[in-house]
């Protein structure tokens, strides 16, 4: 290799294997894996364990692929926001076209493989989810409306429905309610984050509700969505996948979540800044526990059923 070529290769930082993994947004992927797995395991149709493993893996890869497409499109705003400056594209480790190719290739691969491993209904659902996240949310809604989080949240809510579709080949009231649980949970979760990450979204020009309508309106919205979320969470408890364990957990979690939302609604900016957004950060942290605990309770019901217990 000539010295001239060497100097070209020495110029930019080399992308490692981990940088390609980072393009798949592993933290978001973990939520996708967990909710899809629960959706699959609570379904009334038994699936071979290896097919379960492969299906969840391909759903996760599909979710990761949409994350790579998101990073490709959002590279300009990622470079502005502190939280996202270290991502592979703004860090200069992976080129935008490489991320696009990577995202598209993995999208196609995950959909085809899910179709072959499970069924084509689930595969179509996964394709729609990738399209929804990459095109409807990332390209269309994110920069155009403060309701971006509300509608875009649907993309994150589809995985348990895909998991359910892998087992049953269709949709049920249970899978719709699992979807609604995540769909209604997303806005209070992200708006709580936006309350204490204000400057970042402002700098990037992303029309978060906090930027466009102010923080008081955001606090009102958090409370309204939290109140609207509770009936869906409780309704899931009276379906075929619910039971006393889930219902007990849901009642406790929703009382605490609503209490937290009322607490945020009562606060003003002076109070929040005085304690460095302690309540907002606590509410955001609890929102993660809230979702994880609901799906764990569903899994517990399914586990108990296999021992002749659980359910109503």
């Amino acid at each position, binding site marked *: *290799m000539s010295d001239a070529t*060497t100097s070209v*290769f*020495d110029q930019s930082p*080399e*992308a*490692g*294997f981990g940088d*390609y993994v980072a393009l798949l947004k592993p933290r978001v992927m973990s939520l996708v894996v967990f909710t899809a797995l629960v959706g699959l395991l609570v379904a009334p149709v038994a699936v*071979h364990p*290896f*097919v379960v493993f*492969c299906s969840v*893996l391909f759903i996760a890869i599909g979710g990761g692929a949409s994350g790579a497409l998101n990073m490709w499109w959002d590279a300009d705003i990622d470079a502005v926001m502190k939280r996202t400056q270290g991502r592979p594209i703004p860090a200069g480790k992976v080129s935008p076209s490489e991320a696009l190719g990577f995202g598209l290739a993995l999208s196609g691969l995950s959909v085809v493989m899910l179709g*072959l*491993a499970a069924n084509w209904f689930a595969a179509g659902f996964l394709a729609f989810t990738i399209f929804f996240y990459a095109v409807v949310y990332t390209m269309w809604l994110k920069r155009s409306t403060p309701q971006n989080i509300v509608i875009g949240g649907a993309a994150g809510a589809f995985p348990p429905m895909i998991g359910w579709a892998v087992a049953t080949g269709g949709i049920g009231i249970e899978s719709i309610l699992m979807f609604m649980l995540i769909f209604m949970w997303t806005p209070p979760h992200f708006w709580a984050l936006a309350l204490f990450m204000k400057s970042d979204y402002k700098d990037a020009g992303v029309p978060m509700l906090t930027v466009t309508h102010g923080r008081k309106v955001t606090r009102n919205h958090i409370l309204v969505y939290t109140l609207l979320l509770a009936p869906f969470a409780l309704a899931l408890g009276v379906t075929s996948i619910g039971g006393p364990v889930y219902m007990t957990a849901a009642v406790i979690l929703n009382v605490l979540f609503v209490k937290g939302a009322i607490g945020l609604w009562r606060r003003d900016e002076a109070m929040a800044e005085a304690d460095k957004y302690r309540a907002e950060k606590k509410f955001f942290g609890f929102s993660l526990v809230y979702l994880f605990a609901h799906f764990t309770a569903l899994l517990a019901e399914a586990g108990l059923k296999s021992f002749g217990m659980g359910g109503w």
Partner: protein
Amino acid sequence: MAFKEDHELHKRRLGRNIGLGGVLVAFVALVFGLTIVKVSEMGPIVPSQEEVSE
């Protein structure tokens, strides 16, 4: 002729190449496993009466 020492670039890419190799091997194992599961779930293929008489 003596082998040339690896360029620093190749050393840097080693991790990436090993990772990709691992992913490809895992993918082959996955497809193989799926094939075994799918084929065993189908059960034995019983020939029809017509096929037997032929």
